[in-house]
Structure formats: structure tokens, C-alpha cells
């Protein structure tokens, strides 16, 4: 089997791998209004600017804005899991899953500091390549 078929596939289009194979989150900042969005954008959806969109790496640190503990999901999806909305330092927000915390509302604090981690999702493409995604984990006081 050729080497390339085992290369990981990103689960979202703004998850990228650098030349050393390290994962990062690609984003865009509008130099006009400062809005930060995941992925590559030509036009700013916050202010409508059609130029001055700057390519950035999204921060890998953030805080939990809100969450839920999902107990019933689509067929075949393992539950429970914690679904969070995270505000990233320096702008942008992502939805994702929180790892390393018991799936109990008592264990989760609003404003909890989290970091981005990259993991094999356990899912593979039809040609056998593993899907990688970003997840969130708690982080201590910096």
C-alpha cells in the first residue's frame, strides 16, 4: 500500500497539517473590522470587506462559553459526550467535544479554560485513511 493512503484526513477543512505534519487550525482575520473566522475567506461576513483578509492560525487556547451533555444522539453515535462552544483567545469560536471531563453538569464550569488537542477520531475514509479532528481538553492556569 502506498504511503500516501495512510496520511490522516482532516475532519474539517480548516484543520491543516504543516510541513512537519503537525496539525493546526487555519483561520482568517479581517484587517478592517478584526473579525476572526475559521477557514479561508475572501469576503468578511462580519463587515462585508472584500479585501484585507489576513490568513492566521487560530489560537489553541480558549474558554467554554456554553455546553450541554448529550445523552441521546443520532443512531450509532456513542453517548454521553460533552458538546461545547468555545471562545478562542484572539477571536473566533468553535463548536466541539470536550474530553477529559466526566459527562456530568456538576463537573463543568462556565468559563472553564480549555486547549485544543488533535486526535484520531477512530473513523476512516473509504480508502482507509484515518480522520483527525480537533477536540478540547481542560488546561490549568497558565
Amino acid at each position: 500500500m502506498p504511503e500516501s493512503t495512510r496520511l490522516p484526513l482532516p475532519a474539517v477543512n480548516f484543520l491543516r497539517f504543516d510541513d512537519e505534519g503537525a496539525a493546526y487550525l487555519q483561520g482568517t482575520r479581517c484587517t478592517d473590522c478584526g473579525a476572526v473566522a475559521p477557514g479561508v475567506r475572501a469576503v468578511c461576513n462580519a463587515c462585508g470587506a472584500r479585501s484585507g483578509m489576513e490568513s492566521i492560525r487560530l489560537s489553541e487556547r480558549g474558554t467554554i462559553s456554553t455546553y450541554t451533555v448529550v445523552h441521546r444522539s443520532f443512531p450509532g453515535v456513542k453517548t454521553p459526550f460533552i458538546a461545547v462552544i468555545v471562545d478562542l483567545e484572539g477571536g473566533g469560536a468553535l463548536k466541539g467535544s470536550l474530553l477529559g471531563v466526566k459527562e456530568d453538569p456538576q463537573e463543568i464550569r462556565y468559563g472553564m479554560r480549555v486547549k485544543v488537542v488533535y486526535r484520531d477520531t477512530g473513523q476512516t475514509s473509504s480508502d482507509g485513511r484515518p480522520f483527525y479532528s480537533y477536540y478540547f481538553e481542560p488546561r490549568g492556569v497558565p
Partner: protein
Amino acid sequence: MANVYIVGIDMIAFGRYPERSLASLGAEAALLALDDAGLSIRDVQALYCGNLMEAHLMVGQRILREIGQTGIAVVNTANACATGATTFREGLIAIQAGLYDLVLAVGVEQMGKGLLGGGKRPDGFVEEGVLGSGTMPAMFSQIGLEHSRMYGTTFTQFAKVAVKNHHHSTMNPKAMSRRETPLEEVMAAEMIAYPNTKLMCSINVDGAAAAVIASESSARRLGLMDRALRVRASELTSGPYTPHEFAIPDFNLVTRNCAHAAYERAGVGASDLDLVELHDCFATAELVHYENLGLCSPGEAGNLIDSGSTALGGRIPVNVSGGLLSKGHPLGATGIANLYEVATQLRGAAGARQVPGAKIGLTHVCGGTPDRGSACVVHILEKA
């Protein structure tokens, strides 16, 4: 702006009709609304049809095949959970524009049981559980817990919404579920996504609702002003940019913007309303929309449900129909069904669930999905 009136309106009893066709459900509602106005399909100049799941399948034309193919203009619309209300609004706008003076708006949906959405992406990847959750209950639970974060709103307060709306539904023969659910039962029901238990989630049902909309001259000429409802405001908004845009739609802001525009258009305030039918797709949603619609100050929604003010007999009854939680939520029909409830109340014809002396009522629908966006419609009706 020219006055526009609802001169006929009705809905079928929401439920499960797997043996019926989508078109036959829409046709039944259309005929009920025409009967309510004492009119025929031959009087109708255009049909506006709202449906989400078969939006590309000419549902309006299929309905006319059931009730009379008069060759009139048919417009098929889809706009998430705001589909039915958007459809109604399109008909109203055509009358205001002077294109027509009598049109029919129908909202209809046939739904399976269970969670909406899901499945694999075209590349085979399942996002659910990896990229958080895309289920509707999870999204509206996150919105509820955002309110908890800001104001300390409790699981018990959210659960009281379900107790209230299920109680109201016992007085509505057209509701899907018509039974009392005590607080302990609501809170002990299967947890779907904290804090929404199964009894705090709207029910996926089949349903249809329809309205006959007329210009003032037409309503007068036909002698229909006695039971007519004047549409004081009909506003539509989409979700404006927020920093959370790519994480979760902001159902608060899209509703606040829409409500503000509607109050401005109608020249009334929230304190002038006698009742509200709002989009309680989940119990958590009802509480946040109390504030978004201005029924109470920011942070006061928990106190408002605790005080009983939004129950029948309270200061501002909300969802006396039973709401989406118990009446059911057939996506494309919901926005016209809540107009039916307010119209019925303003006509004084709501029976056991009548809000005494109701003169002005508001309807609200709001929907959307992560990674796409949101839509909101607010209508304000007044007895003509």
C-alpha cells in the same frame, strides 16, 4: 402600508398520519380555511405553500390537484422553522403590493419520529460526537445553559415551561399530546441533552394549517370583516453576524431584531399584548424568548415562569395552545398554526383555553442550524 386581514384560518389536528399523502394534509387545511371564510378555491388569486422536507417537490401544485387546479400563481417556500410564517408573509406582501386581493397560504409537513438530521457526510465522516453536537436539542440546551451562565436560570425553571405548556394542551383538541406532566415527571424523563429532557422537546408530528389573506376592500366586499383579524406587523429577519457565527446561531439576536421591528411597525409594545404564541421548540427556548420578545427584562425569564405570569390566567399567557412542546412541531405548518391559535383567541372562540378579552396577540417562530444560519418571523394580530 395598506391594511391586510386574515379572513379565514384553520389547522388540522396535529398527529401522525403515515397513511395520508403530504398533499392531502395540506389540502385538508386549505379547505378548512376556505370554509372558515365561506369561500371557494375559485375565489383565490394565488397560493403560497410552505414545506421544508419536500421543498423542491412542488407541494403547492400538488395541493391544487387535490382541491382545484385553477391555474393561479403558486409560490413554494422553505425557511427552516420559519417556513410557515415566511409563507404567510409572502402572501401578505403580495396583497400589500396590490398584486392580488385574496390569497391562500398553506403550511404542511410530514415528519418521521426521532431526531432531525444526522448521518454521514459525503466523504463518509460522522461529525456528531466529534465536532460537538448538531442535534436540535443539544443546540437549544446550549442556548439555555448560556442563559444559566448569565443569570443562574435553573433546570427546574426550564422544566416548568413543559409543565405549563402540557397543561395548556389538555384544553386544545388539536394538540398531539394532551396530558398533564407534573414537574417531577418532566425532570425525571429521559435526559436528551442537559437540561432538556424528552418532555422538554417538541414532538415531531404531521400537520397542516392554512390562512385566507385579504385586502381591506376585498374583506369588506365579501362581508368578512366581522371575524377578520388585522395583521398589524409581519417582520422577517435572518441571523446577523456574531462572533459565534461558525459555532452556533444566535437565536436571541435574530429574535430581538425581529421583535423590535414588529413592535415598531405595529406601534405597540410588549405590554400591549394579551397573549403570545412563541417558538418553544425546546423548553429552554421559551425562557430565552421571554426576554427576546420583551415580555420581561433581561435576566427575569426564570422569575417570570416561577410567578405563573405566562400561564393561562396570568399577566401574559404564553403558548396557551400547548405550544410546540405538546401541540407538536410540523416544521412547515407551525408558523401558520400559531397564527391560527392567536386568531382563534382574538375571535373569542378558544373555549376552555380562552384568554379573556384578548385584543392583540403576537406569534413568533425562529429556526436554523449550526453552520447554516437562522430565520425569525414575528406577527402581531389584532381583532379587526
